[in-house]
């Protein structure tokens, strides 16, 4: 396989891993105001993601950094075209991050309520906007051969874009609720399990509609018809989605969480495989698409970066798995009693 193709799939993989790790943080933050009835519930939810969200967020930084290094033209065009939504995402992430740290620092209801609001917005907005942005990328972005953007932010909120946003929000809620089922006990656990089950019921039709809508709104299926083997990705995504429900019903929370992670992975790769070789297609003229081949870095840079990534990303995965393993047990009062807890 050519260097550029390898990088294309690494690029997709980094986004997928970001969605499946930070995705459950976004999900927890989105159901936070609804599932967290008492202050203790809320603290359990925050502490469920507390040790992990920071490391999860770095997958976004790395996905961004790798886009910059391997596909500078994509990095430049993508982020200047999607300027306003990206700024909104960044501000939302800022607020989520500081809210987690700030909330517990002063013990008054008003103070907590303020940061509670930001925790919700800081999780829900990125989930929605990433979905809107990626659906729009699947459909193509109006930019010309100079990389000049001809759309506006409101046009991103078209039906297909919003459908993508809804899909992401639901996927992340399911994934977050599954993680909470692992970390919570008692009434809170019952509530998040209920949320997981209800979300699943809505997610199934939304996913089906999204798959059908993609046929009309995008060219993603062209690759699939050319290489029918690719339909396997969709089968994996759908299979994993059903496995989520199956394991939830059996109260096998970890397996359910792995299954929802696989669903997110499958959904991302559904788009990635359909896009190939374009990373950022132009809706104005297919000749202006930014692809793995016309927008990549020099072979030397790609080789050096490949060496770096192949050595370090597995190491990162090892210590992150260790971190997850360290914090896999349900939250106890002792955990909440520590002065560093959120």
């Amino acid at each position: 396989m050519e260097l550029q193709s390898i990088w294309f799939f690494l690029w997709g993989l980094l986004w997928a891993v970001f969605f499946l790790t930070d995705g459950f943080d976004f999900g927890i933050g989105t159901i936070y105001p609804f599932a967290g009835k008492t202050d203790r519930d809320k603290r359990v939810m925050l502490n469920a993601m507390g040790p992990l969200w920071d490391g999860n967020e770095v997958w976004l930084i790395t996905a961004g950094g790798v886009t910059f290094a391997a596909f500078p033209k994509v990095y430049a065009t993508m982020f200047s075209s999607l300027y306003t939504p990206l700024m909104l995402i960044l501000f939302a992430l800022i607020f989520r991050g500081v809210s987690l740290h700030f909330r517990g620092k002063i013990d008054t209801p008003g103070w907590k309520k303020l940061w509670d609001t930001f925790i919700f917005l800081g999780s829900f907005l990125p989930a929605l906007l990433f979905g809107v942005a990626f659906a729009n990328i699947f459909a193509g972005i109006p930019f010309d051969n100079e990389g000049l953007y001809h759309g506006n932010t409101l046009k991103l909120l078209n039906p297909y874009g919003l459908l993508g946003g809804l899909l992401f929000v639901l996927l992340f809620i399911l994934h977050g609720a599954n993680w909470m089922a692992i970390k919570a006990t008692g009434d809170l656990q019952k509530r998040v399990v209920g949320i997981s089950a209800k979300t699943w019921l809505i997610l199934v039709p939304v996913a089906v509609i999204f798959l059908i809508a993609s046929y009309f709104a995008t060219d993603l299926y062209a690759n699939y018809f050319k290489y029918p083997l690719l339909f396997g990705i969709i089968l994996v995504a759908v299979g994993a989605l059903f496995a989520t429900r199956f394991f939830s019903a059996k109260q096998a929370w970890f397996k359910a969480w792995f299954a929802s992670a696989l669903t997110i992975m499958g959904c991302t790769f559904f788009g990635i495989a359909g896009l190939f070789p374009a990373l950022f297609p132009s809706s104005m003229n297919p000749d202006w698409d930014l692809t793995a081949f016309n927008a990549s870095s020099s072979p030397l840079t790609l080789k050096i970066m490949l060496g770096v990534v192949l050595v370090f990303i597995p190491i990162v995965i090892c210590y992150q798995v260790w971190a997850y393993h360290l914090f896999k047990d349900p939250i106890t009062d002792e955990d909440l009693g520590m002065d560093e807890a959120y």
Partner: protein
Amino acid sequence: MDPVFLSRLQFAAATMFHFLFVPLTLGLSVLIAYMETKYARTGDTVYLRMTKFWGKLFLINFSLGVVTGITLEFQFGTNWSRYSEYVGDVFGSLLAIEASVAFFLESTFIGIWIFGWKKLSAKAHAGVMWLVAIAGNFSAIWILLANGFMQNPVGYAIQNGRAEMVDFIALITNKHGWLEIIHVVPSALLLGAFFIMGVSAYHLLKKQHIEIFQRSFKIGLIVGLVTALWLGISGDMHGVNVSKTQPAKLAAMEAHWETQTRAPIIMFAVPDQEQEKNLIEIGSLPGLLSFLGFHDFNAEVKGLRDFPKEERPPVLPTFIGFRTMVGLGTLFILLMLYGWTRRNKLMESPMFLKIMFWSIPLPYLAIEMGWVVSEVGRQPWIVYGLMKTTAAASPIATSQVFISLIGFILVYGLLGAVGFYLIAKSIKEGPEAETN
């Protein structure tokens, strides 16, 4: 207003705000790792309480540093897309390496450190803090190498209409980058040391938690003394290099207009960029600029008038920035030398403690001014001698940049206020009681 100006303003605001938190995070992480190691080795709970107290302040800073750093990475794409396209092959790699080898490590282990007190042994927990400290400083190294490329581009060739990497080793052994590293990384330690001494002084003056804060102060004093002296030396090394690689910056740092031998240093001046001269000059020390730049009193120093008008950096901020940084650096050395003589008589030195308390903002000011000299002095180039800042901006609507700039000011203003309030509150509350 043009988008280039607004983007510059936005980037400057975002970087300078980010850099209010990063150096303290870097400096404190090392000092806290040291304290925790002492605890893990001796079991002395004073060190544990120290670790927790400084750790709390560290974490507020850490969170603000991280969240404001994310916006910086993406601004290259949003606001400087022409730049990203042109040098991404070289510059982007350094950012990507920073994320995958350093930032991951720091962010993953900080979570383990915060929540892992009961899950890990004391030694392993202290080890985790060392990983955070090392990864944080390692991350700074990669970022400074990226900045080093903007200051002194190496290891590239112009091919296919852009700068492409031809020599990775040259890129990561860039002399300018390493001179920045040996100056900027220790400056974070100095800031950490001054912060610890200032906060300790506050409690010592109130005669509370004396054991904890006397020990903290001494750790700060030793680190402060060594780094203050080292910053003088490494700053001088930097000056000599700048005079060779960025002569226009040197001239702007000194408001030096006429090319001459035995060039003087002017203690105080009011430079006027339009009239190409200084309106007021006080205290001229002949030959000193030649010595500073070239270690030779008779060396010729090129003046600003001999650079094309459009290649001169803004003189006033560069000049003032440099004066402030060097003045404060000298003050730090004097304070630390004096402090060393009082190291065992802290409780009898209320005046010195008061000075150290009021000195907390000074290293921040020195560091920010250092960046003004470095970055404003680099103008009008975004990559020195290779690409002008005006050619680097994204082709986007002014209104977008304007609105996001307002957003930055509001959000960062709010965060700064809350962060400052929480830090001040934690300082006042002091460490947890012994029984805890």
